């Protein structure tokens, strides 16, 4: 039994993605402090080392390795960027250190390779996009045209691939009138907006995040584009507070999972409320989805250790015991409970809603919330997402399990 | 050294010939129907007032400037449109009015590079300082009175020293024809004659034809076989030093009354 349980976590502390990375670290500090205050896991306190993903791939791999090997970390949480996930997953496998992919969206990881040491404690791009398609089809069944404005990098491209493929099979009559991939970090979308105003699509999809999403929505709002088209913004939960009044009512918002600071099923729970207060106190902000993802990874880790200890009746599990505990592990962070599939992929529910300016907050909140069960949103093990989606049809939406809430 | 021009006078085309060169810069005519024939084996001095077009003539002959009209021939070959390096490869070297040196290299290295460029570079990993032409180059430096600054970087040298090294660099190419633009300007008068003496001797020994622009009439009188006088873009006169330096027009326009 170690004196402390050392864990390493990679997150963006610098660079544009620090809009996710820094809140996640702040949250992690709270989770760790809370657990340590209760005596840690089976009496073992936890100590986290953070690794900045913004420092570049060399620094990341060197640091990851240092923390995992000489730093004595028993378990690693990595990472946010999907490029980094691709680097880290095989490295963790070779180093034989259990690694929880806590905020890594690309569906490819487990579809293209098998891993023994790598687990994902959240859903993936497929479940996130399918939920957005399903919500759109349920709430807005009659739209005819769609345009997309995504960031020009893997996430923007992949997510549109999934969304588009799904739309083609579930609503073949929809016409894609414009596909824009402005460069990542673009400061200006005026041209795209002019073009969209001329095209007047019924629906505009953007899976952008951070400053790109903020700028796009703000500029669209200023120029009246939001009055003429319905926006589908699967990551906008993370921008709600910053967008303030610029996100008017009636647009579709997602959260990469069932993450929302007013989660209809969780908002009355004591642990949920107390965390929200702690977080608000520590940072002054409302938490965004990366905080929820951090909570899930943390919960998964805690659950795995506790399960391994209980299953084996030991003081502290060996690595094999710990790995065994991850098989089919069930855990719950700040959202609904999750579990790990056989391919180490997490099954996570997806929350979607429609923006509303109620006046309760100086920014948009959600109404007509739907929480989709994660099971139906992932391809069966062994199938790749795109192939699987190509085999679906319009009836897919009705097969999904969903709960609906007014707000 | 080179053998190509050992025989001083040969029948056949002159070593360098220009026909009706014209070049104008805006309103200034720097060359106005310049036709010159330069025979092998002689030292030709070019004199003339400032701005007469002397440097421009050298620029055209070496391909730095393209004339608006006219042609340049090197032993009968039309070289008017060739770039300088092609002309240099045919045995023409040049020293400049404003020295053109590799300022971060030492004086000796400047010469060694010149020698390497001349002979081609065979062994890519041999040190420049070890190439076999080193002694020859030290000798050349000595010739221009600069052996003592061989290991100084060019930026550290005085203007006069640079001029001398610039000449040595041109000489290191073992040219058939050497063009020098005011070789002694900036060289202290105490050294001028000494340097020119040795230089001209060496050129004669190697059979190098030389053309030099010069403002010092003492030098012209002593070292030129022939003098051409430039004026306003034209060759005004041509003749032996004695004839020319006595000519009243030349005295008026170039030499000035007192010294004469």
């Amino acid at each position, binding site marked *: 039994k170690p004196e402390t349980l050392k864990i390493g976590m990679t997150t963006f502390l610098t660079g544009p993605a620090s809009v996710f990375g820094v809140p996640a670290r702040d949250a992690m500090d709270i989770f760790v402090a809370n657990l340590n205050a209760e005596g840690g896991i089976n009496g073992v306190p936890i100590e986290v080392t953070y690794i900045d993903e913004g420092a570049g791939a060399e620094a990341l791999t060197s640091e990851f390795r240092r923390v995992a090997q000489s730093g004595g970390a028993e378990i690693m949480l990595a990472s946010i960027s999907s490029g980094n996930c691709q680097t880290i997953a095989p490295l963790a496998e070779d180093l034989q250190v259990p690694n929880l992919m806590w905020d890594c969206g690309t569906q490819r990881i487990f579809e293209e390779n098998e891993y023994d040491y790598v687990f994902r404690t959240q859903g993936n791009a497929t479940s996130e996009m399918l939920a957005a398609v399903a919500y759109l089809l349920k709430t807005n069944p009659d739209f005819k045209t769609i345009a997309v404005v995504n960031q020009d990098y893997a996430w923007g491209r992949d997510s549109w691939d999934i969304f588009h493929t799904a739309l083609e099979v579930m609503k073949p009559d929809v016409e894609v009138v414009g596909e824009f991939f402005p460069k990542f970090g673009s400061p200006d979308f005026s041209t795209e907006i002019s073009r969209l105003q001329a095209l007047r699509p019924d629906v505009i999809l953007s899976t952008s995040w951070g400053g790109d999403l903020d700028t796009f929505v703000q500029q669209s709002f200023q120029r009246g584009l939001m009055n003429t088209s319905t926006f589908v913004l699967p990551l906008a939960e993370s921008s709600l507070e910053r967008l303030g009044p610029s996100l008017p009512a009636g647009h579709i918002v997602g959260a990469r999972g069932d993450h929302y600071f007013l989660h209809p099923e969780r908002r009355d729970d004591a642990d949920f409320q107390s965390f929200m207060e702690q977080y608000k106190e520590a940072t002054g902000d409302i938490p965004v989805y990366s905080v929820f993802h951090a909570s899930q990874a943390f919960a998964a880790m805690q659950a795995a250790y506790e399960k391994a200890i209980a299953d084996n009746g030991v003081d502290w599990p060996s690595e094999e015991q710990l790995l065994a505990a991850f098989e089919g592990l069930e855990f719950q962070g700040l959202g609904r409970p999750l579990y790990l599939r056989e391919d180490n992929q997490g099954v996570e529910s997806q929350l979607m809603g429609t923006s509303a300016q109620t006046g309760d907050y100086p920014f948009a909140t959600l109404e007509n919330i739907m929480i989709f069960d994660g099971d139906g949103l992932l391809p069966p093990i062994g199938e790749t997402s795109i192939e699987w989606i190509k085999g679906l049809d319009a009836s897919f939406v009705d097969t999904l399990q969903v709960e609906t809430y007014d707000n | 050294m080179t053998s190509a021009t050992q025989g001083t006078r040969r029948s056949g085309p002159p070593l360098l010939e220009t026909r009706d060169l014209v070049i104008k*810069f*805006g309103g*200034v005519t720097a060359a106005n129907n310049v036709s010159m024939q330069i025979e092998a084996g002689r030292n030709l001095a070019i*004199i*003339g*007032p*400032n*701005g007469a077009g002397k*440097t421009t003539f050298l620029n055209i002959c070496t391909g730095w400037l393209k004339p608006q009209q006219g042609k340049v021939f090197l032993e009968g070959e039309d070289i008017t449109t060739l770039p300088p390096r092609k002309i240099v490869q045919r045995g023409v070297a040049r020293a400049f*009015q*404003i020295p053109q040196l590799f300022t971060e290299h030492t004086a000796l290295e400047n010469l060694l590079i010149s020698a390497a460029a001349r002979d081609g570079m065979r062994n890519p990993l041999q040190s420049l300082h070890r190439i076999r032409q080193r002694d020859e180059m030290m000798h050349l430096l000595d010739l221009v009175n600069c052996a003592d*600054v061989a290991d100084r970087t060019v930026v*550290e*040298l*005085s*203007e*006069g*020293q640079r001029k*001398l090294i610039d000449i040595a660099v041109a000489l290191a190419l073992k040219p058939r024809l050497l063009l020098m*633009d*005011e070789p002694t*300007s*900036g*060289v*202290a*008068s*105490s*050294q*001028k004659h000494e340097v020119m003496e040795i230089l001209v001797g060496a050129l004669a020994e190697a059979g190098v034809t030389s053309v030099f622009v010069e*403002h*010092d*009439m003492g030098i012209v009188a002593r070292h030129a076989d022939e003098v051409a006088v430039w004026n306003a873009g034209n060759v005004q006169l041509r003749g032996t030093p004695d004839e020319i330096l006595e000519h009243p027009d030349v*005295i*008026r*326009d*170039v*030499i*000035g*009354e*007192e*010294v004469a």
Partner: protein
Amino acid sequence: MLEFRNVTASIGIIEILRNLNFRVDAAETLALIGRNGAGKTTLLRTIMGFTKVSGEVLFEGKPLTPLVPAKRPGLGIGYSPEDRRLFSAFTVEENILLPADAARLGAVETQRRLDKVYDVLPELKEMADRPAGNVSGGQGKMVALARALMIGTKLVMLDEPFQGLAPALALRYADALRALRDADRSITLIITESNPALLRGFASRTLVIERGEVSDGSLSPERKQP
């Protein structure tokens, strides 16, 4: 007027001039001679403030050393560098006028001085509007000379001013400079020149520099009483 006291000047870590002690009186015309690399140019550059100096350089009794180079022309020091250093983005006349602009002389004074300069160097008048980058080597020297005369009301330093000039022209300039000096007794001239013939009967004193040291040139036979 100008005095060197124990001056040692270095470029980088190399000492070029050592232990110079001499003075130049007002209205003197000093010829600096010496072999190539003796340190003539460096001496002038030292007065302009472009070398590292230990010891004292006094100008009209006041130490020059604390002044940054840019402040020195304002004292009435004009300098024509050996390598011309014209501003090719400007025309010949603009080059000549720049020192006046920098000193903010005002239109009237500027014109007065320009006229004077053209009196000395009439050849420049016809090239006034040509870009300075294109003039010939000798013409460039003339422009540099003119520029120095523009600002040098007290001290004019010419580094090989006749280098590259056709002898006829050089002689005329020597005459003109002499006339200028004779007309305005407040001007002190320092000239480095390798052709002593041109300075004959012109320089009031000769200073020989050798290996960075000033030898007893001040006792030169060419010395003339002002």
